[in-house]
């Protein structure tokens, strides 16, 4: 297959598919936690892209993509903690995590 002539294309396509799955999950699920799961999947797809470009790029000894992925993992962990804390607080207030029912900003 010509489209898989370089291994980089395989990794990039897997990352693109993972991103699309995460986006579909974030846009179509009703539960707020599932939306956060979709966002985590999208962040991970971006990390896979960074690592693949680092590995197949011209200067892997510069560690640029590797460091970017490490910092991105740290930021994603912080985002997950705050996001899940918000979901728990919303559930405590409104007794639901169904995003179709949460439609007002006022507590």
């Amino acid at each position, binding site marked *: 297959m010509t489209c898989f002539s370089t291994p980089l294309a395989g*990794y990039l396509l897997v990352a693109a598919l993972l991103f699309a799955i*995460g986006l579909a999950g974030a*846009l*179509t699920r009703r539960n707020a936690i599932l939306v956060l799961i979709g966002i985590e999947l999208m962040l991970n797809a971006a990390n896979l892209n960074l690592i693949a470009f680092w590995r197949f790029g011209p200067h892997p000894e510069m560690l640029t993509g590797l460091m970017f992925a490490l910092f991105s993992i*740290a930021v994603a962990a912080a985002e*997950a*903690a705050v996001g899940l804390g918000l979901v728990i607080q919303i559930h405590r207030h409104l*007794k*639901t995590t169904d995003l179709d029912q949460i439609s007002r900003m006022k507590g």
Partner: protein
Amino acid sequence: MSIAFVVLALLTLAGAMAAVTLRNLVHCALALAVAFAGLALLFLQLDAQFVGFTQILVYVGAVAILVVFAILLTRGADDGKAGTVFSRTWLAGLGIAAAVFALLGWAVLRSVRGLAQAAGTPAVTVENIGQALMSRYVLPLEIVALLLTAALVGAVIVAMYEKEGAR
């Protein structure tokens, strides 16, 4: 295209697909852990050992457990209710996701043809990474440390039990 890559890619994608489609939220969290583990193995296959083990520690170890805790803490009202788990606007969301994938795939297939093959395996040790973190990347490292502290304090304050009438 090695066999290992195909197996790991299928494992990751199947885990991700299950995580966003399954009905039971706990099953979703388990499928998410499988997807994260598959990604960690893909990182290991790309010779990024440090990032692979960080992925296992942070995602499989911490984020997946955090998601399980959140699912168990928000149990109740809307569980076991008949009806769909998907939003009213699911068709538009699916269309947007498909369009994004088509665009990304088109861009990848068009642009990657001219790229050179990889040079030999990069010899990156944990020592290299540590020295880079302490010299060239010391400012981002400090900023991430500050961000993690702020996020920790913020998450605790947001999720802390709210007293009646204190609002």
